[in-house]
């Protein structure tokens, strides 16, 4: 059987009809990983034995007609999400040998359906970066061009899906870390609304921004994973109960009813590549040709979003990463002579340069005398950005933007200048700051490199994003 470009939807059909077993499907993807991972470095660890035994259980479930959509479906998990008894590195030397003692809630939910976990994927250290070049375990290469990055920080998950090493994956998104690699690798990625998916068992980066979300080949597949992992969890008090209120209305929406906002601040942004703009505008024009209403809108505080993000994220990560002190987890420097040296040398030795930079920026921004000028001001600007979105969503249903100002860049191209790397996040950080949901899907290519269309929706309007994404994917 030709399994190339298989989707979750199609695999579920094959499994249900007995055309293939979950064990065969899992073996196929383990084989794919075996032959491709050496070149791409998408997976940091592969759990072959466990995956096959889980697939066996899935086959029993399928035989007994107890299967759901994800039963027996091979998935990859970003290596900052805990899977019990497996190593979880977060891309950092400091956690190189750290073994999870419990499952993240999202993993519990996947296990309940007997989804098959193939292994853990590469990321920037502690999900800090934009290209997976900050991983302590080497860069992940873009399957479309191995001289280029896969994007980040969920670069391993994006590359694994794009190179057909799994049927779907989980990533995390703090400032674009699902959407930007999805865009660079030509797959679909969702950053859910803040509070839609439990982060219990995800290693924290920027706690007021972090969300776990799905990546897959189609919008439908992303929706299937999302439906399984989302929902209230008493173990993450930021999850919002009964939030999917838009579902009923969305069923009835037609493409001609859609009001699509085009924010001028994004399309006129200085760093936006002209060809990327053209391809994204083509997608906009397609919706217009189908009867959707296109409206130019303004999100006036967009210019402050990147500076606000690069205060809030470092501030929160400096607090979150304080726990890697050589006492409770992971590595401890061997050269330390007393308690203070234990902290200093452990963090000096085992944390990468960008992680150290962010911790220091965060420490500075939170230190006495600077708090009001930096962190407090950034959180006020965040109120303004949220207000921009609230007002925009009174006039339009969804907002279209490019996911990234460029296609995948060359490995090493932006590593010398931190600020140039930060600029890669310009169109994605706003969704995290405002808490809204965002979907990235492929809308074309430039020289064989994928271009992503970002569709932003109001809080908890994931079902609307799926509907709009599916219109485009299926009808175009």
């Amino acid at each position: 059987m030709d399994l190339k470009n298989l989707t979750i939807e199609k695999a579920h059909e094959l499994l249900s009809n007995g055309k293939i077993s979950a064990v065969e499907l899992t073996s196929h993807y383990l084989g794919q990983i075996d032959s491709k991972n050496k070149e791409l470095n998408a997976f940091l660890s592969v759990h072959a034995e466990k995956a096959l035994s889980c697939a066996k259980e899935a086959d029993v479930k399928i035989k007994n007609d107890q299967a759901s959509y994800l039963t027996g479906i091979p998935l990859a998990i970003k290596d900052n999400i805990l899977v019990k008894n497996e190593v979880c590195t977060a891309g950092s030397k400091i956690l190189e040998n750290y073994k999870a003692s419990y499952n993240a809630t999202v993993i519990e939910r996947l296990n309940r359906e007997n989804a098959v976990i193939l292994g853990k994927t590469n990321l920037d250290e502690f999900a800090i970066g934009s290209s997976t070049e900050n991983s302590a375990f080497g860069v992940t290469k873009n399957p479309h061009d191995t001289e280029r990055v896969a994007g980040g920080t969920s670069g391993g998950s994006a590359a694994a899906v794009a190179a057909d090493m799994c049927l779907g994956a989980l990533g995390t998104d703090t400032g674009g870390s699902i959407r930007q690699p999805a865009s660079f690798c030509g797959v679909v990625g969702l950053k859910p609304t803040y509070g839609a998916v439990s982060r219990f068992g995800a290693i924290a980066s920027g706690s007021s921004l972090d969300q776990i979300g799905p990546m897959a080949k189609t919008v439908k597949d992303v929706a299937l994973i999302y439906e399984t992992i989302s929902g209230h969890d008493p173990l993450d008090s930021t999850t919002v109960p009964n939030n999917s209120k838009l579902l009923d209305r969305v069923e009835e929406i037609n493409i001609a009813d859609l009001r699509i906002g085009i924010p001028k601040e994004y399309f006129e942004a200085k760093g936006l590549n002209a060809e990327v703009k053209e391809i994204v505008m083509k997608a906009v024009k397609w919706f217009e040709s189908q009867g959707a209403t296109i409206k130019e809108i303004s999100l006036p505080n967009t210019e402050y979003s990147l500076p606000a993000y690069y205060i809030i994220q470092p501030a929160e990560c400096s607090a979150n990463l304080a726990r890697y002190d050589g006492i409770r987890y992971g590595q401890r420097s061997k050269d330390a002579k007393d308690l203070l040296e234990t902290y200093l040398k452990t963090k000096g030795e085992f944390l990468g340069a960008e992680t150290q930079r962010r911790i220091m920026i965060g420490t500075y921004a939170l230190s006495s005398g600077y708090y009001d000028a930096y962190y407090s001001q950034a959180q006020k600007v965040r109120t303004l950005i949220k207000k921009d979105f609230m007002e925009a969503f009174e006039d339009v249903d969804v907002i279209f933007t490019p996911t990234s100002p460029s296609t995948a860049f060359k490995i090493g191209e932006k590593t010398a200048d931190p600020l140039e790397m930060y600029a890669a996040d310009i169109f994605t950080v706003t969704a995290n700051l405002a808490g809204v949901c965002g979907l990235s899907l492929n809308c074309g290519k430039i020289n064989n490199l994928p271009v992503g269309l970002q569709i932003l929706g109001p809080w908890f309007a994931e079902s609307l994003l799926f509907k709009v994404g599916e219109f485009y994917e299926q009808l175009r």
Partner: protein
Amino acid sequence: MISKEEVKKIANLARIEISDSQIEKYQAELSAILDFVGQLSKANTKGIEPIRQITGLESIFKKDEDRGLLDQENGNSLVNQAPEHKDGFVVVPEVLKGK
């Protein structure tokens, strides 16, 4: 531009040991980043409340009861993650110097 002394101070507050050559590198990089984020001072935020929680949730309580998350085995495996441990306890470097 922040000074070398400031970089040293921040690194020490953050408990990160950095070498002299790193101090120089971080001085330039952190200064550039702080200049960039400094643009925020131009934003007019008079009378604007800072975001506390983006979806507006407040005071989420939970019952003070055993949720069955950790059994003895898992509890031990948490302690065993520590770089140094003994008899189910985490061993730390001496904090207060004894006599």
